[in-house]
Every structure is written in structure tokens, then in C-alpha cells.
């Protein structure tokens, strides 16, 4: 008989597809994401020689004539190679207004430009004639900055900081601080939704776990049905219910509780986000709680009563402590899902109900600032990991029961 691989090696071989799967679906995207947040060589590749010349520049005033000549050449080539737009966008993110400067410069220079500046003594004069920005220090700083492949810019930006002209790091002007308040809002909304899910989910899970078997099945199905329904359908249902001319407002008006011209704004704002997210995430609280509660014999409450404990004492001292692993698991699950929630706030949150994930999506899809999106997402990921570690320290992750 041939000597084959050792059984252990063969057994390990069985895990290869799993490891490959995790690598492709998890580690690779995450790695790309983290890379994007600190590395972007686009400008460095489009304007390589300009960057080389600017490396010797002392960053005061404007650079030498050589820099003007080089960038003019490279912008012309970028136009011909159709990479100009990408470079312009990136430079514009650092100093807004530079996009048009960068884009129009090769156009104004015209075609068939030789090595001599057209209609001027120097390249510097030619460019400044096209736009005065070329004569300003800030423009050249921005270009130099955009050419750095490694940058902490996105991370600073994500926490509302910026690099000043003198290289120091400082808070952005008040009006441009949007991300930190958004993170805080996301945090509060997630905590609020988690608390709401716990308050609503605990009695439901209790009823499912300890009601007679017929009732508990019915209740369990009621909790699970939303799971089987499309998220969009459920969210749309809330729009139908909560909108200005919606069911709830109609009933309130019909009952005379609110006036017809005083209909409550319950959707496209924070209320809508709260209500819909709580509804969507409730099963994630109920299921771990249910699984823990089911394992607590009802006799424990009888035993506590026989020992002289009032129902309240029995609950507080005997029942509640035994459900803590479920409370921890459910809360962690809901909180982590809430903190990254995107669809529901996007649909029913309106202006005031947007969360950090909506901002990440905006930078991914609309502004195409992937670096910033990646930095925002990385910070979110870090927060979740931090939370997990904290939970592990305080409660112990092995005490968590998901089902």
C-alpha cells in the first residue's frame, strides 16, 4: 500500500475550502477597505514627474519654473490619456475649487503645445494667465498633498480634523464638523434602539418561553414572520402607517387627539428611524432571550416563592440573573447591527434620521470618495471590536448564548 498523507493532514485539508471562503469573502474585502483608507496612489501615478520636482520644494511661496513646466506637460498628457478628471477630483478634495482649475488648464493651453509656453515668457506666466490660482501657495500645497500615496487625511477627515498650513493638526471649523456628531448620533440611536428592543423583547421572549405550547408557537411565528418578509416591505409598511396622511395619523385625527392641521411628523425623521429599526431588529433580541429563558425551569420561580420571595424578589434575584447571558447576547447583537444600519434610516430617516452608514454609502456611491468612506467604516469597525472586547472583559463572551 502506498503511504498517503497523514490522516491529520488530510483532515486539515478539509478545512481548505472554508479558509479560502473566509479569505475571499471576509479578509480580502476588509483588507482592501483598510488599505483604501490610508493609501491612494492615483495622483502620484498620473503626475509622477511633478511629484518628483515638488519633492525638493520648500513649500513656501510657489515652486520653481521647472515645476510649472512639468505639470503643464503632465496635465496635457493626462488629458490625452483621459486620467485628468480623476486627478482633478482628488486634488479638489484637498482644496475645493481646484477641480475646474486643473481641468481647464490643458484645455486653455490648447493642442499641439511644444516645450515652449504658448503666448508667454514662462510656463508660470502662462498658467497664472489661465487661472490666478496657479500663483498661490495653497494650490501647490494641495497638489503636493494629493500626490502622497500614504495619507492620514481620510482618518483625520473622518473625525473632523484637518492639517493646517503649518502642518499642525486641528479641529475643523464648526460648520464643517459633520462626522463626529454623526458618530455620536449613531451611538445614541443604537443604544436607544437596543434599550427599546430589550424592553419590548423581554416580555415577548418570556411569554414565548413559558406560555402554553400552543400560544408559544403562535407567538414565535409572529416574531419570526418579519424575518421572512423583505426588509423593504416591512419598512414600506411603516411608511404607510406613519406618514403624514398615514393610518396612525388618520386614526389620531379621527379620534380627535390631534388636529387635522397638526398631524404628527413620525416619519422621515428620527422617530421614523427609531420605530422602524426597533421593529426590524426586535427578533435579534427575542431569539437569544427566548433560548436562554426556555432553559430556566418554571419550578425555579415556585421554589423562590416557597422560600418566601415575593414575585418581584423572585424575578430580580432568581429569574433575571439567569437571563443575563441572553440579555448580553441580544443587546450586543442588536447594538452591532444597529450601529451599521443603513437601509432603514435611508428610507425612513429623512434628513435628521441619517446615521453614519448612510454617510459611508454616500461617499461610496455619490461623492466617490472611497478613501474617506473606508476610513469612516474602519472607525466603525474599530468601535464594534472595542465593544466586543469590553463585553468579553465585563461579562465573558463564552457566557453569551445565541441559541
Amino acid at each position, binding site marked *: 500500500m502506498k503511504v498517503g498523507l497523514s490522516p491529520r493532514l488530510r483532515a486539515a485539508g478539509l478545512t481548505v475550502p472554508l479558509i479560502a471562503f473566509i479569505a475571499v469573502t471576509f479578509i480580502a474585502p476588509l483588507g482592501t477597505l483598510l488599505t483604501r483608507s490610508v493609501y491612494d496612489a492615483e495622483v502620484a501615478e498620473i503626475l509622477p514627474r511633478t511629484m518628483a520636482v515638488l519633492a525638493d520644494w520648500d513649500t513656501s511661496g510657489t515652486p520653481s519654473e521647472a515645476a510649472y513646466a512639468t505639470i503643464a506637460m503632465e496635465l496635457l498628457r493626462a488629458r490625452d490619456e483621459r486620467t485628468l478628471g480623476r486627478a482633478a477630483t482628488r486634488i479638489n478634495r484637498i482644496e475645493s475649487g481646484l477641480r475646474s482649475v486643473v481641468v481647464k488648464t490643458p484645455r486653455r493651453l490648447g493642442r499641439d503645445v511644444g516645450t515652449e509656453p504658448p503666448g508667454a515668457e514662462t510656463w508660470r506666466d502662462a498658467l497664472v494667465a489661465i487661472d490666478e490660482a496657479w500663483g498661490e501657495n495653497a494650490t501647490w500645497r494641495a497638489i503636493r498633498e494629493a500626490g502622497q500615496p500614504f495619507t492620514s487625511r481620510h482618518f483625520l477627515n473622518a473625525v473632523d480634523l484637518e492639517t493646517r498650513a503649518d502642518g499642525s493638526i486641528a479641529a475643523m471649523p464648526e460648520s464643517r464638523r459633520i462626522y463626529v456628531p454623526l458618530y455620536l448620533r449613531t451611538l445614541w440611536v443604537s443604544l436607544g434602539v437596543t434599550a427599546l428592543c430589550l424592553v419590548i423583547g423581554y416580555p415577548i421572549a418570556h411569554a414565548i418561553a413559558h406560555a402554553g405550547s400552543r400560544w408559544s408557537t403562535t407567538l414565535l411565528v409572529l416574531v419570526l414572520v418579519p424575518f421572512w418578509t423583505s426588509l423593504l416591505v416591512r419598512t414600506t409598511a411603516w411608511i404607510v402607517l406613519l406618514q403624514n396622511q398615514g393610518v396612525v395619523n388618520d386614526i389620531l385625527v379621527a379620534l380627535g387627539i390631534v388636529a387635522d392641521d397638526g398631524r404628527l411628523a413620525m416619519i422621515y425623521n428620527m422617530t421614523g428611524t427609531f420605530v422602524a429599526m426597533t421593529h426590524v431588529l426586535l427578533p435579534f433580541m427575542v431569539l437569544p432571550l427566548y433560548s436562554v429563558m426556555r432553559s430556566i425551569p418554571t419550578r*425555579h420561580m*415556585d421554589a423562590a*416563592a*416557597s*422560600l*418566601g420571595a*415575593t414575585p418581584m424578589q423572585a424575578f430580580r434575584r432568581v429569574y433575571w440573573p439567569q437571563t443575563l447571558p441572553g440579555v448580553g447576547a441580544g443587546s450586543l447583537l442588536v447594538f452591532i447591527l444597529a450601529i451599521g444600519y443603513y437601509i432603514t434610516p435611508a428610507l425612513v430617516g429623512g434628513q435628521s434620521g441619517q446615521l453614519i452608514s448612510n454617510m459611508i454609502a454616500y461617499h461610496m456611491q455619490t461623492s466617490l470618495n472611497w478613501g474617506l468612506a473606508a476610513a469612516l467604516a474602519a472607525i466603525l469597525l474599530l468601535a464594534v471590536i472595542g465593544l466586543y472586547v469590553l463585553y468579553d472583559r465585563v461579562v465573558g463572551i463564552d457566557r453569551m448564548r445565541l441559541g
Partner: protein
Amino acid sequence: MKAPHVEYRNVRKSYDGRTLVVEDLNLAVEKGEFLTLLGPSGSGKTTCLMMLAGFEQATSGAILVNGESVHDLPPDKRNIGVVFQNYALFPHMTVGGNLAFPLEVRRLRASERAERVARALRLVQLEGFEARRPGELSGGQQQRVAIARALVFEPELVLMDEPLGALDRRLREEMQFEIRRIHRELGVTIIYVTHDQQEAMVMSDRVAVFRNGRIEQIATPETLYEEPERAFVAQFIGENNLLGASVTATDGDICDVDTGSGVVRAFDVQGSAVGDDVILAIRPERIGVEPDSGQYANVLTATALDVVFIGDHLRVRLRVGDNEDFIAKIPNIVGHGTVLPGDNVRIGWATLDGRALPPDPSISQGDIEP
């Protein structure tokens, strides 16, 4: 007259509103008594305890403790110690925490608590186990903790629902002895539930035999064994031979019955009339087999089917009429008879060892192990 410690008066219980799980129960338990509710599974024993503890409400009737109805007392105000079938120890508390719990809700001082917990642990011989968790204890140790917890707040009445059901036989016997000792030491009233007749016999002052929510007979273990009044009791307690028969003559407490394979005399439990159907019960150890049978007043012929040497006795299975499971035990003493399978033999017994019991449609003749 002093009221009994616990009294059930015409108590009925139905869970579904149709079938009665407990039918018209009347029962009085004296202070300091060890009373056992014995019966097969599903006969309503647990339900009786849970009504007394306050976890279930009687459908009708009254339960009295020290002469007063407990109907309106919630379970936490009844001050009754309960040992549950599966212990119901709190897994998130230590042994000490479990025992201190009833004292904490009673707001006892910490020093008093510690002293009582230590005393209760000493009582069940678990000194030094305070810091353990129930999950780290063996079944027998958990059992002791459960008993200690039911006693630590010094109730006068303790209910135990099959507390030894989950233990192996050796441990069970040891714990039976322990519970007896604790009962004697503390003088509390104990109402104990089991389906094991031997356990009931060993431990109890009195035993109430339950069947389908009714008490068939309530008496001391000895009386239940010697003087069963119902075929169910005769069959459930110890081993017994049952023969269907009909009464042919009566004479005070004694009657003649026709077993189908001969007429014998027997003690008439119910005051039968001629022509009544009865069940005749005779204990296996009271039966003499040839040549001993000659000395008895009542003799029948039988065929030996099976003979087993047990050690202290020979166990002989016989056919008597159409009963093929008639057992006789021949003591292993000098000069005892020998029987071989297939032998036709004569068996005999004293008149008072045969008891003519009321007929019972659900009990066939023969010695059925419960």
C-alpha cells in the same frame, strides 16, 4: 380537640375543567407526622402537594393548615419548605447563596444567616460546601442542598416530591435513612411523595395509597401490608397472589369462596353476601407447599411451573386454576420441601392469611409487579 396540622377537605382539582386529577380528597396530617403519598405516576400526588404549597388552586374544597384555610395566602406567605422533584436549586448562586436566599428575603441579620446556613449544612453533612455551585455537586449532594434549603428557614411543614427519584439505589437507601434522622431530630411535619412502595414503607409513619386522584387506603406501613382493604393496595404494596372468586357462604368475618379450583375460607374484608364476586389475596410467604400444606385449613391443588433458588428461599411459580403466576416462597430451613417443575402439588394457607377483597375491574388476577 386540637386541629390537625394539615387538612384536606373535599378537595377536587381539575386542570382542564373536565377530568378530575384529584377527586374529593379528605386527609388529615398530624403535627410531627411523616406521611407519604404513594401511588403510580399520574395519580395526582404532585398536584396535592402543589395545592398545599400554593402553586395550584383547588377547584373546590378547602385546604387547612393549623385549622385555617390557606386559600387566600400566596405561596410566599405560607412558610412551607418544599423539596422539588428536580431540586430546583438556583444555578447562578453558590450553595451558601441558595441557603441564605430564604433568610435574606426574611431580612435576617448577616450573622444570624451565616449561623443558620452553617447549621443546615451540618444537618445534611455538607459542611464546607458553601462556596460551591450546584453544578459542581453530585446528584446526592444536590439533593442534600435542596433539603437543607427547605429546612433552613425553619418551617414547621416540609413537602418533598419524589426527592430521591433521580438517585441510584444505594444512595437512595442512604438518603432515606438521612431524611428519617432529620425528621426525628427536628420534629417537623413531612408530607412525602413517592411512587416507590419500598421507600414509603421504610420511611413513613403513615402511607396514603393514591390511585387516579383518590386515596385507596391510608394506614401505617404494617397495616397496609398485613390488612390491605383493596385489591389495588394488596397488589401495590409488597408481593401478592390474587385469585378471582365468588362467595358461597358467610360466617361473621369469615367467608367461603369458590376459586374455581376449590373452595377455601378467607377473611371477609367488606362484609360480603353470598354470590358476590371477590378477589382473594394471599401473600407468597404465607403459603405452604407439600408436605407442609397438610397443616393448613385451606388447601388447593396446583402445578409447579418454575422453581428458582434465591438463597434464603425457593421461589415457586405455580398454576392455580387459570392463574399461571401464582407465587409461593418456601423458606430455606432444615427439612423444607423440594418441588420440581411439572410436579402436581398441594398448597395451603391459614384462613386469616387469605383476604377476600372487593372486586376491581381493572385488576386481573395474578401477581403483577406495580
